[in-house]
C-alpha cells in the first residue's frame, strides 16, 4: 500500500506541475481563463462536498457565501479604497464566516428537507439584498471598477499570472480540505452523516459538528468568491443567485459525492461543456441537461465512479493480456458505504 501511496503522491505532483505549466503550452488565453474558472468553481464545489458528501447536509446557501465574499472585495475596493489583498481577503472571509455562523444557527434548527429549504430561503434573502440595496451593491448592474491587486509583489493582472495564483489557491484548499476529512474531526463528520443517533449516543455533539462543518465550508466557498470577484473584476446579484447554488451542487453530484476531487472534475465538465456547447448550438442547455441526466442514471457515483470502473476494466484487460507476474493493483473500493 505504501507503493500505491507513493504513486498517488507522485502522480498528483505531476498533475499539479502539468497544470502549472499550462500557460506556457501555447494554449489560447480563452482556455486558460476557462481553466481559471474551473479552479475557482472547483474550490466552491469541494467545499460544498464537505457538507454534502462528508456531513450529509445539502445546502443551497453556498451561493450566498460565495457572493458575500465577492461583494465584500468589490465594496471594500470601490467604496472604502481598501485594495490590498490580504486585509481585503481577511475582511471578506471574516464577514462570510460571521454570516455563516448566523445562518448555521438558523438552518440547523431543521433537518433534511427543512434544512434545505431554510438554506434556500436564506440565500434568497442575501440575493434580494444585493439586488435592492443599490447604494452599496449597485443593484442589478453590480459593481465593476476594481482590479486585481498584487499579491506577494506578484502582478496578477495577466491571464497566466492569475491562472497560476488560482491554481495555487486550489491546491492549498484541496490540501486543507483533504486534511480535514482525514482528521479525527472528519471521521466524526462521517459518523454524523451515516449514524447521527449512534454518534449522539456515543456522546458526540452532533449539531456542533454540523455547525462547524457548515461554517468551515462557507469560508472555503468564500475563498472561491474572492477569487471569482478578482477573476471577473465584477460582481453582480447573479453571483449569489439560486442558479449559482444549483450549479455548484450539480458539479458536486456530477463529479462524485464525498470524493473532493470528483467535484473538481465536475466543475471542469460544467465550465467547459457549457462554454464549448454554447459556441456550437443555441440548444446547449438542453444537451447539458441530457448529459446530467445520463450521468445520474448510469453513473450514480459520478465521474469518479466512472473512473474507477474504467480502471477496473483496464486492470482486468492487463491481467488477461499479459503473463506478467506483477500483482495488479486491487480495484479501489467504490465511494460511500465502504468498510
Amino acid at each position, binding site marked *: 500500500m505504501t507503493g500505491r501511496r507513493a*504513486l*498517488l503522491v507522485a*502522480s*498528483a505532483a*505531476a*498533475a499539479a506541475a*502539468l*497544470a502549472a505549466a*499550462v500557460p506556457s503550452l501555447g*494554449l*489560447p*488565453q*480563452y*482556455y486558460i*481563463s*476557462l*481553466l481559471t*474558472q*474551473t479552479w475557482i468553481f472547483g474550490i466552491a464545489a469541494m467545499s460544498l462536498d464537505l457538507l454534502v458528501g462528508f456531513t450529509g447536509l445539502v445546502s443551497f446557501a453556498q451561493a450566498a457565501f460565495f457572493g458575500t465574499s465577492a461583494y465584500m472585495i468589490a465594496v471594500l475596493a470601490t467604496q472604502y479604497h481598501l485594495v490590498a489583498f490580504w486585509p481585503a481577503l481577511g475582511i471578506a472571509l471574516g464577514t462570510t464566516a460571521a454570516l455563516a455562523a448566523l445562518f448555521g444557527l438558523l438552518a440547523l434548527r431543521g433537518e433534511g428537507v427543512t434544512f434545505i429549504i431554510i438554506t434556500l430561503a436564506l440565500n434568497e434573502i442575501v440575493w434580494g439584498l444585493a439586488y*435592492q440595496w*443599490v447604494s452599496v451593491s*449597485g*443593484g*442589478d*448592474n*453590480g459593481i*465593476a*471598477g476594481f*482590479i486585481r491587486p498584487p499579491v506577494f509583489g506578484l502582478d496578477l493582472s495577466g491571464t497566466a499570472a492569475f491562472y497560476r495564483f488560482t491554481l495555487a489557491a486550489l491546491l492549498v484548499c484541496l490540501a486543507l480540505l483533504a486534511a480535514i476529512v482525514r482528521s479525527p474531526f472528519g471521521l466524526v463528520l462521517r459518523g454524523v452523516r451515516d449514524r447521527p443517533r449512534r454518534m449522539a449516543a456515543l456522546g458526540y455533539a452532533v449539531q456542533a459538528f454540523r455547525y462547524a462543518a457548515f461554517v468551515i465550508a462557507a469560508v472555503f466557498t468564500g475563498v472561491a468568491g474572492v477569487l471569482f470577484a478578482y477573476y*471577473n*473584476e*465584477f460582481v*453582480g446579484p*447573479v*453571483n449569489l443567485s439560486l*442558479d449559482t447554488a444549483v450549479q455548484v451542487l450539480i458539479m458536486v453530484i456530477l*463529479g462524485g459525492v464525498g470524493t473532493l*476531487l*470528483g467535484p*473538481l*472534475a465536475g466543475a*471542469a*465538465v460544467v465550465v*467547459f*461543456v457549457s*462554454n*464549448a456547447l*454554447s*459556441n456550437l448550438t*443555441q440548444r*446547449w*442547455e438542453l444537451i447539458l441537461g441530457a448529459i446530467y441526466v445520463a450521468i445520474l442514471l448510469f453513473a450514480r457515483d459520478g*465521474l*469518479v465512479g466512472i*473512473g*474507477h470502473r*474504467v*480502471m477496473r476494466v483496464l486492470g482486468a484487460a492487463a491481467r488477461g493480456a499479459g503473463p506478467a507476474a506483477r500483482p495488479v*493493483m486491487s480495484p*479501489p473500493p467504490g465511494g460511500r458505504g465502504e468498510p
Partner: protein
Amino acid sequence: MRWVVALILPLLIGASGPAWSASGAGGTLRVGVLIPETGYLAAPARFMREGYMLYLAQHGNKLGGRDVQTFIGDTAGNPSTGLTQARRLVEQDGASVLFGPLSAAVGSALVPYIGEHKVPAIYPIVSADDLTQRRTSPYIVRTGWTSSQTTQPLGDYAYKTLRYRRVATIAYDFEFGWQSIGGFVQTFQQDGGTVLKETWTPQTTNDFSPYLSQIPRNVDAVVCSFSGSTAINFFRQYKAFGLTMPLVCQGNATDESTLAATGPAAIGVVTALHYSAALDTPANKAFVAAYQKAYGHVPSYYAEGTYVGAMALDRGLAAMHGDLSDPLAFVRALRRLSIPDAPRGAITLDSYGNPVENVYIRRVEQTGGALANVVIHTYPGVSQFWTYRPQQFLAHPVYSRTYPPCNGCGAH
C-alpha cells in the same frame, strides 16, 4: 491513479474544444456580437440578431469596405456568462469590435473588460443612464438611448399636452424602472405636476393584484415602465382589475415584439420611445418593408437598434478607411458621426457617446387589423440631458428610487 484522471480530465476536455484561429487576419473584420439567445431575454434577442443580419445582408456582408465575419456569443442575460463570452469572442475568435449586449447588467459588467483590452464596443440597446453619463468609457459608443432619455419628454408631454396634473407611477423595481420613471417624474414635477405615489414591483412579478390595489384612484393617469412578458401581464391585469385611469408608459411596454400578444388591453396607451415601426417616413418604410420580406414580421425597436448599430459601425469604419488599429481614433470617429437616414430619423452623437435623436410620443391603435404604435407627436433632436446643460444634469445623482423625490407621496 484517480488523482491523475481527475486532474488531467479538464485539460483533455479543453483540448477537444473548437480549434483556435489567429486573430486580425487580412482584410476580414471580425465582429463579436453578444446577445442573450437563451434565457428570459431570448424573445427580444431574436430581433437584435435579425436587425444586425439584415443590415449585413443588404450591404453584401461588408462593413466599412471590409468583409465581415460575425461571431455570436450567447450571454443568456447573465453578466458572468457575458464576460466569459466576451473573452471568447476577443481572445479566441479574434473579434476586433464588440457589438451588443441587451441587458444593462451585462453591459455594465463588460465595461472594465472592454477598457482593459481596448476593444471598441457599440452598445445598440443597453440603456443604463450612467454608461454615457457619470461612468463613461472611452471605448464605448451607444447608438441606442438612455432609460430616461425617452421619459423626460414624456413627462413634459403628459403635463403640457395631455394636461395631466396628478399621476401615480408603477414600474420595475430595478435600475431600468427607476431611471425611466425618474426621467418622467423630473420633468412632470418641474412643469408643475404632482406625483401621488410610486409603486415598485419585483422584476419577476407575474401577479400584479397586490400592487394594482395600491394605486390611488384619484389620479389623472398612471405612469408605467415594464417590458417583455411582464408588460403583457401588467396591461391585461390592469384592465381585468377594472382600472380606468389612462396609462402613460415608457415605450418598451408596447414594443412591437410583445404588442400583438398584449392584445386589446394595450389600446389607447400613450408611450414614448425613439422608434416606432409605424413611423411614416421613407427611410422607415423601406426598412420595415425589407425586414418584413426577410423575416415575415414587423420589426421592433430591438431590431431597428441593431440595424442602426451596424449602420454606425459601417460608417464609422468607412470614415477610418477600414482601419481599426487605433481603437480610440475609431471611437472618436464614431462619436463624430451623423446619421441622417436611420429608420428612426436623424441621429447625431454627443461627446459622451450617446445619440441625440427624435423621441416619438405614440399611441397604441388598431390599424389595418393589427395593433401599432401610431406616432402622435415628435420631440425632435432630444439629448440624454433633455433641456439641461450636461454639467448641470450630471451634478445630480443618477435617477433612482429616491431621486428625484416624489412631491406628493404621503400627501393623499
